[in-house]
């Protein structure tokens, strides 16, 4: 029995060591953020989606648009590109952050937030914090 226990412990130690050693091309789950998926979706439905509706986003996105819906997942995939609440594709499109000139908005539907502190950018930034946590500082 003691031998079985020792073998099991060795096996466990081996796998734990494997999991902590990242080899090239290996894939890891990021535990820090995976817990907040349900919370993020709830926040989106209760706070972000109504702000999109109040700020004219549904004029284009609620019907047969090339990106026809404004669902949690479709917006999450734009929110995800970037490394902070202020640096992500969703905010830079609706906030007109990166445009050739201020009167030629990057977003086909134009600038939807007067500043990053006004809606709907404000709710989007809060949503980013729930989904992805503290801004990365490697940059």
């Amino acid at each position, binding site marked *: 029995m003691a031998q079985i226990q020792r073998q099991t412990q060795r096996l466990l130690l081996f796998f734990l060591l494997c999991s902590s050693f990242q080899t090239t091309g*290996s894939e890891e789950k990021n535990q820090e953020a995976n817990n907040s998926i349900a919370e993020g979706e709830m926040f989106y439905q209760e706070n972000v989606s109504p702000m999109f509706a109040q700020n004219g986003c549904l004029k284009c996105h609620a019907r047969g648009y090339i990106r026809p819906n404004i669902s949690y997942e479709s917006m999450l995939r734009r929110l995800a590109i970037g490394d902070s609440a202020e640096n992500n594709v969703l905010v830079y499109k609706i906030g007109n952050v990166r445009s050739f000139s201020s009167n030629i908005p990057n977003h086909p539907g134009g600038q939807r937030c007067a500043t990053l502190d006004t809606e709907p950018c404000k709710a989007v930034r809060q949503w980013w914090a729930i989904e992805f946590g503290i801004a990365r500082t490697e940059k």
Partner: protein
Amino acid sequence: MSESKFSVDQQRRTLVKGLGATTLALTLMPTSLFAAGRGPTAVIVGAGIAGLSAAWELRKAGFQVSIFEKENFTGGRMVELKTGPLHGATHAEGVFNANREMFALGAELGIESQVRGEAYNQVWSPESGLGLDNGHGIYDPGGMSDFNIEMTRKIPGLSPETSKKLFLLQADMDEINATVDPCLLETGTVYDNESVGDYYERVLGKASGKEIVNYKIDTACAGWGWDPYSTSKVAMLSWLSSKEQFVYPRGGIATLPEKLSSVLPVQTSTTVRYITPPDSNGRRTIHYLAANLERRSVTPDVVVCAVEGKYLASMVQGLTPKQEALSNNCFFTKQPVVYWILDEKHGPEELIMGAYTSGHPDPMKARTYHWVAMPGVPELNQPPYVRYSLSRKHTPEWQNSDMAIEDYCWPMIKQLYPQLEKSHVVDIVDHSSDSLIHMPVGYINQMAEVLREQRKGKKSLYLAGEYVSGAHTGAACASGRSVAREIIGHWI
């Protein structure tokens, strides 16, 4: 006996505990995105034609590749777009015959005849009213890839002085045609010194230059959503000088990316969040959202960033100053397009269309890039529709208007096609989208500097795509293949 039973139960419990712990350990253990192999690992970000072409070359050379694509389809702008019953192309429609890398890749995959196709030059028919209207008459503006001097002389309203000076353009066109590859615009950096509008005004004189820009160049630029007075002349002249035909691939625009996707490992619905600077081993970690929305990360040997240039600044950390400067200069033009889908009783009996220069004297026409009323095609399950595309110059006015695109465009289309009634409309489809990368004066030099730096030696991050080659599908394909060859040279 009882001691023996106890012992067996305990052994079982121990084994169950051990297996449970092992399962937990296996769950936590990194999984591999790559098939077993010995070559370096490479993640290609973006399954557009640039990323797929790069992945194909790298895999042939022995790399273990995996492609991440944020959309649930592959091919990027070369996707065969289908929106409900309506088949419309908001992205790439055809390819230029100069796309030699693309045709060579098609040949390698055994589908060259499907990638090649018929010329596009039968579209215009001024005698049937299908042409460009500049207020003086309707004419054939010529292809986007051919500045034909004889044809240009026939433009209605063109002044005799301008007509006489057109021969002055031929020498420059011959030189550019001989020296610049329109699929790899870094070959044309010496011509990246003025806008295409300024070029025509300099060579032909201000008045004649403006005429040519208004009657010919502005419409060609509009195909890219570009403004002639900010766009680098080489971005346009590389095509206008080439005399290459624009063709529709026989197998459809998506033929090549679909074939590549069928033989390469693509992870669709996988969104890259950000790519870290190199670690102490020189490798970068990619943080991403997997298809099931889990947050994951992977650290390959090589990352090829074949995304649309507009994502670069948000996505990649630790760019070099030259890459950073280029990424901050990546802008995309807009293409506002709206479809009114009509009920079957109220479609036109035959195709009716209009296309206008932005200097047209009628203000409603000047606001219109083009429109078409299309009969239904039952065999394609395509309903009758009216399609309207707003001119580039008026796009910002709409963007800042807070109006839905169909409300903004309604007065224009109502004047152009009075038969259109709201009661005949069964659906509205907004095909407004980002268009192509803008190439203002100086961009091509900036791009070439990034490529020179990239070639200097082995790296963990390489850039590929239209934003470092040229604004069309053939350039993206050529970029993917040429960058892959550089990586192979550095790593193998």
